C-alpha cells in the first residue's frame, strides 16, 4: 500500500524520531518534536487512507450499456462503431479525495474516441459516467471484464489498485453485406418472382409463362393459348416454369487448427465471415440456408430455413463459432503461467494479495525425502542409536571430550563442559544428519525458484477457488503441470486472452492437422443428404489443405451427395503471406533482403536470422502449395471444386453454383 515515496518518507521519519528522542535531546529537542509531528501526521494519513479504502471498495457500483445507432443493444455489428456508456455510482458516506476510474477495453478493438478513464474525488451519491466509441473489425465475441479503480492519497504516499469485476460478453455479428442482396433494377422476366420461388428453366407447373409450343396430343385444353392459336391458325400450348426451391447448407470447420492466429484474424473468422456473406445473399434471394458447425468431436446442425429470424440465428451461431478461442493444450508451462499470473493480478488483485493468498515460509521448506539421498540421511538417523549405545564408541568419545580441557577453574563448570562436549561427540552422527536436514530445508527460502513457487501457489489458489476444488486443488495445481496448464488455459480462454501455442510436437509433427474432423464432417454430410430435397448445394468451409491423404470418408460422403444430384463445393482458408499456388515465380526474382555473402560465417546475426526466416518461409510456401494441389486433385476426382478464401470472390462463386442449380446462366 505504501508507495516508494511513502517508504522513503517513513524511513526518514523513523530515523528522525529515533535520533531526536534518544540521541539528540541534550543538544536540541527540536528534531524530536519534528519527528514526532511527522510521525503523527503520517500515522493519521495511513489510518484514514485505509479506512477510506475499505469503505470505497464495497460501495462502488458499475453499470454498462452498449449503444449502437442510438439504441441500447444486446449485441453489436462488426465494422459499425458503437458507444460504451459506463455508469459508476458511489453510495458510501466516506469521501475519497482522489480516485481514478479506468475501463478495461478489450484487445483488438479499434478506438474511435471518447473518454474511458477519469480522475476525480468521491462523495456520497457521486455519479460518474464514462462514454467512448469503439469498433469491432471482425465478428466474434466482445468481452468487457470490468473497471480498474486506483485509489491514492493526496500526497502520493499510499496507493491501492482494485478491479471491479463485471464480466459481460456481447456477440459481434457479421457485417450486413449487400453482396447479391441488392435487388436488380431490371426484370429479367415478365414479373418479379414471388417470395421463395425461383425460375428454373424447365417446364413445370409454375405460374410464369416459359414458352409457347405447338399442341401435342394429350395436352390439357386449359393450357391452350387461344389468341396465339387464332393468329397462327393452329393450336398452340402454353408452357410454364418449374418452381424449385434451392437449398444451401454451409459446413463450418471450428477445429483447433482454424482457431490459430491473432484474435480477429484467424482462419475461422475468415470462414465465418464468408459463411455469413453467403447466408445473407442467399437469404436475400429467399433461398433456404442451413448451417452445420463441426469440429473433431461433434457437429451442431441448424436446419435450412429462410426466415429473418433464422438468418439472425445463423449469424449468432457464426459469431459464437468465430469467437471460440484457440486450444492451449501443449503450451509451455512457463509461458502459460506467466500470462495467467499477469491476467490474475490484473483482474483479481485482491485475491492475489499477500494477506489474502498467503505463502507461509514453512511451505518453502524443502522436504528432505523429496531427494533420493535424503533417505540416506534418514538411514543415518535411524542407525545412529545402534552406534551410540556401543561401549567402545562411548569410551572413545569420552576420552576425546576429556582431552579438551576448558580454561575454567570451577569444578562444576568443568563437569558441565565435559558432558556437553561428550554429548556432541557421542551424538555427532545424529547432529550431522540434523544439520544437513536443516540446511537442505532452509535452502528453499533462498532458492531462486522460490518466487516462481510463490506465484504458482497464488495462481493455483485462484484457480482452485474458481473451479470449486477446495484446498486439495491448490497442491494439485502446484505439482501437476498438465492439470495446471489445462486449467490456466481455460482461465485465459474464458477471459479471451491469447497465448502462443507450439505448432509442432517434439517429433516435428504438425499438431493441428485435425484428421478426426473428416469423419465428423462426412457423417454430417450424410445426415444432411438423408434429409435433403432436390438440388442442394453443400459448401464445406474447412481447412483440409493438410489432409489430402485422409479424405476417404469425405469423398465417400461427397459421392453419395453427388449421386443424389447435389453439388459440393469446398472453400479452404489461405494464409495471407503465402502466394497463390498458380503464380509462378519470376525466373530471377528480386531478393527480399539485401544481398548477403555466400559464406554464412560472414553474416551478422541479423542477416543470418533473415536468411533463415526466408528459407523457412520458402519451404513453408512450397509445402502449402503442394498440399493444396494434392487436395484439389483428390477432391476433383469426386467432382468437388475447391476454392481458396480470397481467390476472386468466394461468395460470388457460391452464388453462381446456386444459380446453376436453378438452371440459370451465371449472372456475372
Amino acid at each position, binding site marked *: 500500500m505504501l508507495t516508494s515515496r511513502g517508504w522513503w518518507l517513513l524511513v526518514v521519519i523513523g530515523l528522525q524520531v529515533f535520533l531526536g528522542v534518544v540521541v539528540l535531546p541534550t543538544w536540541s529537542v527540536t528534531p524530536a518534536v519534528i519527528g514526532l509531528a511527522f510521525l503523527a501526521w503520517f500515522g493519521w494519513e495511513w489510518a484514514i487512507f485505509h479506512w477510506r479504502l475499505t469503505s470505497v471498495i*464495497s460501495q462502488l457500483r458499475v453499470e454498462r450499456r452498449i449503444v449502437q445507432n442510438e439504441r441500447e443493444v444486446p449485441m453489436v455489428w462488426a465494422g459499425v462503431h458503437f458507444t460504451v456508456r459506463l455508469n459508476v455510482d458511489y453510495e458510501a458516506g466516506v469521501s475519497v479525495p482522489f480516485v481514478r476510474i479506468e475501463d478495461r477495453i478489450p484487445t483488438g478493438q479499434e478506438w474511435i474516441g471518447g473518454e474511458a478513464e477519469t480522475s476525480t474525488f468521491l462523495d456520497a451519491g457521486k455519479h460518474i459516467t464514462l462514454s467512448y466509441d469503439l469498433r469491432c473489425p471482425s465478428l466474434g465475441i466482445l468481452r468487457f471484464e470490468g473497471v480498474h479503480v486506483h485509489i491514492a492519497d493526496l500526497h502520493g504516499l499510499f496507493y491501492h489498485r482494485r478491479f471491479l469485476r463485471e464480466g459481460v460478453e456481447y456477440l459481434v455479428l457479421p457485417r450486413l453485406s449487400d453482396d447479391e442482396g441488392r435487388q436488380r433494377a431490371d426484370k429479367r422476366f415478365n414479373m418479379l418472382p414471388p417470395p421463395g420461388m425461383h425460375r428454373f428453366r424447365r417446364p413445370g407447373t409454375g405460374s410464369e409463362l416459359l414458352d409457347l409450343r405447338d399442341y401435342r396430343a394429350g395436352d390439357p385444353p386449359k393450357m391452350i393459348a387461344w389468341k396465339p392459336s387464332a393468329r397462327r391458325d393452329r393450336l398452340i400450348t402454353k408452357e410454364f416454369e418449374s418452381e424449385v426451391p434451392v437449398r444451401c447448407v454451409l459446413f463450418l470447420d471450428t477445429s483447433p487448427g482454424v482457431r490459430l492466429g491473432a484474435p480477429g484474424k484467424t482462419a475461422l473468422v475468415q470462414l465465418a465471415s464468408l459463411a455469413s456473406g453467403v447466408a445473407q445473399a442467399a437469404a436475400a434471394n429467399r433461398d433456404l440456408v442451413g448451417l452445420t458447425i463441426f469440429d473433431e468431436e461433434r457437429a451442431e446442425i441448424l436446419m435450412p430455413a429462410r426466415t429473418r429470424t433464422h438468418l439472425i440465428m445463423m449469424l449468432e451461431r457464426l459469431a459464437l463459432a468465430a469467437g471460440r478461442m484457440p486450444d492451449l493444450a501443449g503450451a509451455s508451462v512457463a509461458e502459460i503461467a506467466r500470462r495467467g499470473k499477469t491476467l490474475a493480478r490484473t483482474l483479481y488483485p485482491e485475491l492475489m494479495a499477500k494477506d489474502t493468498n498467503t505463502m507461509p515460509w514453512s511451505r518453502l521448506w524443502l522436504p528432505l525425502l523429496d531427494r533420493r539421498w535424503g533417505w540416506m540421511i534418514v538411514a543415518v538417523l535411524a542407525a545412529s542409536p545402534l552406534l551410540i549405545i556401543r561401549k567402545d564408541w562411548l569410551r572413545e568419545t569420552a576420552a576425546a571430550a576429556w582431552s579438551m580441557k576448558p580454561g575454567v577453574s570451577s569444578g562444576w563448570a568443568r563437569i558441565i563442559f565435559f558432558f556437553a562436549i561428550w554429548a556432541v561427540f557421542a551424538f555427532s552422527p545424529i547432529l550431522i544428519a540434523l544439520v544437513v536436514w536443516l540446511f537442505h530445508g532452509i535452502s528453499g527460502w533462498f532458492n531462486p525458484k522460490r518466487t516462481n513457487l510463490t506465484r504458482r501457489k497464488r495462481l493455483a489458489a485462484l484457480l482452485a477457488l474458481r473451479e470449486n476444488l477446495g484446498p486439495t486443488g491448490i*497442491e494439485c495445481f502446484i505439482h501437476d503441470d498438465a492439470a495446471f496448464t489445462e486449467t490456466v488455459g481455460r482461465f485465459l480462454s474464458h477471459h479471451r486472452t491469447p497465448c502462443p501455442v507450439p505448432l509442432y510436437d517434439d517429433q516435428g509433427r504438425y499438431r493441428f492437422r485435425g484428421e478426426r474432423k473428416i469423419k465428423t464432417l462426412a457423417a454430417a454430410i450424410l445426415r444432411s443428404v438423408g434429409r435433403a430435397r432436390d438440388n442442394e448445394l453443400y459448401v464445406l468451409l474447412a481447412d483440409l489443405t493438410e489432409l489430402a491423404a485422409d479424405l476417404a470418408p469425405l469423398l465417400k460422403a461427397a459421392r453419395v451427395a453427388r449421386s443424389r444430384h447435389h453439388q459440393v463445393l469446398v472453400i479452404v482458408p489461405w494464409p495471407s503471406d503465402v502466394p497463390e499456388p498458380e503464380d509462378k515465380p519470376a525466373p530471377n526474382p528480386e531478393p527480399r533482403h539485401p544481398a548477403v555473402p555466400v559464406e554464412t560465417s560472414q553474416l551478422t546475426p541479423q542477416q543470418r536470422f533473415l536468411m533463415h526466416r526466408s528459407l523457412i518461409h520458402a519451404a513453408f510456401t512450397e509445402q502449402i502449395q503442394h498440399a493444396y494441389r494434392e487436395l484439389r486433385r483428390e477432391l476433383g476426382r469426386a467432382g468437388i471444386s475447391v476454392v481458396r478464401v480470397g481467390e476472386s470472390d468466394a461468395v460470388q462463386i457460391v452464388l453462381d453454383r446456386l444459380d446453376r442449380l436453378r438452371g440459370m446462366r451465371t449472372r456475372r
Partner: protein
Amino acid sequence: MKQETLKPSDRELFRHPGVQNYVLAALVSLVIVFGTLYIRGSIVGGIVVVLFGTAGLFLRWTAAPVLMLLLTTYFELFPAGKPLLGSDDPWGPRRNSFRIEDMLLTMGLLVYVASQYRLFGILVQALPSENEGTTTGDANQPIRRPTTAISIVEFPKMIWLAAIAVFAAQITWGFLVFFQVETEGSFSVKYVRHFLPETAAQENALHSAASRFVLLSAIVLGISVIAHVVLWYHRMRVLTPDEAKMIVLDTAWNESRREYARVASWQAWANARTRRRTDTTEGEQR
C-alpha cells in the same frame, strides 16, 4: 484512452486557485522556517533551506520534501553549518520543551512537505507507474490529479491537520520527558517530580534516553495495535464474498498442506507415468 485533448500548461495550472493555495502555503512555510532558524542564530541555514525549498518547489524535485526535513534538522543541530556538536546541556530535554519556535518550525516544515507533495500530485505524478493494470495507450505518461478534483475543503483540512499533529507531538514529547519508567518492583510509569540531569545515574529507573525510547515504543505499539484491530475489523465487515472464500480456502490449505502436498505429488507422478505410457502406445501404433 483519451481524445487528444491538450494537457493544461504549467501556466494554466498555476492559475488555478487550488494550486495557488499550495504554492503560497509552501512559500509562507519557508519564511517561517527561515525565521525560526534565524532566531536560533543559523542565518546560513535559513538561507540554504529557503533557497533549496524554493528551488524544489518550482523545479519539482521529488526528493525535496525529504531533503528539506534532513536539512532543517541539520541546521538546527549545527547552526553554523559545520557538523560540530557543541557542548550538550543535560538539563536541555526538560528545560527546552514547549518552545513556541519549535512548534512554529515544525508546523512550517510539515505544511511545506504536505503542500509540496500535493503539488507533485497535480503537476508531476499522482499515481505510481505500473506495468500492469493499465489499458491506456499512453501508459508511459504519468497520471496527474486534475485541477477539477481539487476540493475546497482540502486546503484548510491540511492546515488543521498539521496544527493538530504539531500539538500532538508536543504533548507526546512532554509525556516522554516528564514521565519515566521505573524498575522498582514491576515496571511502572511515574511522573518525574525532581528531574535529574540527563547524564546522572537513575535509581530504580531506566536511563532517561532508554526510558524515552521504551515509552515511545509503547505508545507507537499501542496505537498501532489498536488501529490495526479497528481497521482489521472494519475490513472484515466489508469483505467481498470472493475475498472471504479465498481467506477460508487459504486457511484450510494452510492447515493440511503437508498431507495435500504428499498426495498431490504422488498423483502427479502417477498421471505423468500414465501419459507417458499412452504417448508411447500411440507412437507405436502410428
